């Protein structure tokens, strides 16, 4: 098991992702995620001072489009796909938290 990752860390991340995990799942994921982090630690141990950080796997920058209005989708079609609709808007359950 990883020394860097605790069961509490996994529980916290699960909460942030709104995942409900059983005790057995917490044990499993602590071990599996720990192994991933250990692998990353191997890379971190290398001397990479002269290697520029990779910002993206594709060797591309500045993929841009012109500021020209294009088609939008029909509101009735969009709202017909939603579980609940009211007054031309998406209806969602009561929000428990606050705005980020």
């Amino acid at each position: 098991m990883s020394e860097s990752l605790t069961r509490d860390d996994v529980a916290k991340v699960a909460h942030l992702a709104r995942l409900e995990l059983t005790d057995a799942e917490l044990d499993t994921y602590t071990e599996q995620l720990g192994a991933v982090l250990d692998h990353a630690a191997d890379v971190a141990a290398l001397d990479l001072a002269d290697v520029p950080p990779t910002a993206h796997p594709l060797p591309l920058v500045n993929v841009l489009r012109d500021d020209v209005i294009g088609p939008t989708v029909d509101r009735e079609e969009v709202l017909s796909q939603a579980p609940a609709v009211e007054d031309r808007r998406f209806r969602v359950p009561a929000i428990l938290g606050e705005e980020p």
Partner: protein
Amino acid sequence: MSAVENLTHQPVEGEHFTITSEATGDVWEIVVGLEVHCELATATKLFCSCPNMFGDEPNTNVCPVCLGLPGSLPVLNRNVVELAMRLGRALHCSVEPSVFARKNYFYPDMPKDYQVSQFDRPINVDGWLDLPDGTRVGIERAHIEEDTGKNTHAGGSGRIHGADYSLVDYNRAGVPLVEIVGRPHIRHPEQAKTYIDELRAILLATGASDAKMEEGSLRVDANVSVRRVGDPELGRRCEIKNLNSLRSLGRAIEYEARRQVDLLESGEVVKQETRHWDEGAGRTRPGRSKEEAEDYRYFQEPDLVPLDPGADWIAAIDGAMPALPAARRDTLAAAAGVAPTETAVVVAVQRDLDQLALAAIAAGGDGSRVLLHVEHNLAVEGAESLDPAHFAQLVTMEVAGQLTATQAKTVLGDMLESGKAPDAIAAERGFEAMDSSELEGIVDGIIAESPDEWADYCGGDDKRRGKLQGFFVGKVMKATKGQADGKAVNAILDARRTAAG
């Protein structure tokens, strides 16, 4: 009575605002850093070609990208980059290669369940903004991000707490924003308002945003802390949200600073948290505790490649930079021979009348006089279309004593209405320079009419004399139908008193 009510506060010289505790005698200062979100004035959204339009029918400006439908991919709007860089360079920032990141959270204002923002590598870093009073406020960063959809809370109180459910309009989801993070260099509620005024002027000058607080295209959060004057350490801060006007901004900062002083004076601590300003109640209320940055689990947006505008694009932006308010103030102040911090200079630039003032000064008008009229008599529609040559002529007539200050104001009003030259208007109105011997005769006549007042004027103390001076000047003005020059009348009165004395 709470300790806050025992505190007195007064703006002291310059930009400092302090709160003095009567209980301990300690003097506190406030430290404010502002975070401003402004919507960019593009035709389309940040990552899709839906219209960026305020006030449209709900959920009509939406597409698979901004609705977060599976398989859709974002493509960055070139004009967003252009406007963000223009703003960044206007704020003296360095434009850096940048990347986009996902900020993850569970809240239905973004259908994707994350907001695309810039996190560890923002486009603009490390600039500054100079306030008209000469204060330089540092800019930590000005980065690009998406705006969110608009929630309407239904049922209950209509507020988020106690609502039965919410309704969401995604027209605003994906509208481009720049978030401008200012350093905590502000020390006064009024200075915070000035900072927003100045920033708004820059946003308008660069065309980056229409910067309308009332429509939400410019939104301000204030980080407020307090510390004892002289303490080099920053106090623990609270972030104040829901500031919908400059008035709210100033009031909220002052309230929050007093609340924090009250807490610290009574031996308690300030809890780092988000607080909401309640304009009706005139107070801030606690919101959620500030989440740690890692709770958003930022990671690089894999669907977008890095942005690296390069030296040529930056040079093109710099080359096309319009004159900014600070530079315009400097130019006008130099031409008028006054300091750029003079209120009249600040006001002239704010009202877009600096070009008129410069032209009038270039046409021979006295700088100080021109600015005086701009500040006090030209706060009207159409002032910018005033003929600068006529304006200069008016000022010259005034300086030469051909018109009194009151007459000049009247003539200026007529000039704006009719477009006629000031000498023609003065002639029509019968404003003619009063011969000095004629004026002396009138003053002498009035002195003779009021011997008691005159004796009092000559023998009374300064206060009494000031009152009677008003009495005599008023009588002369009445006798001359307002055509006498007040200054000349005062000079004659003074000379007569000295002679009598």
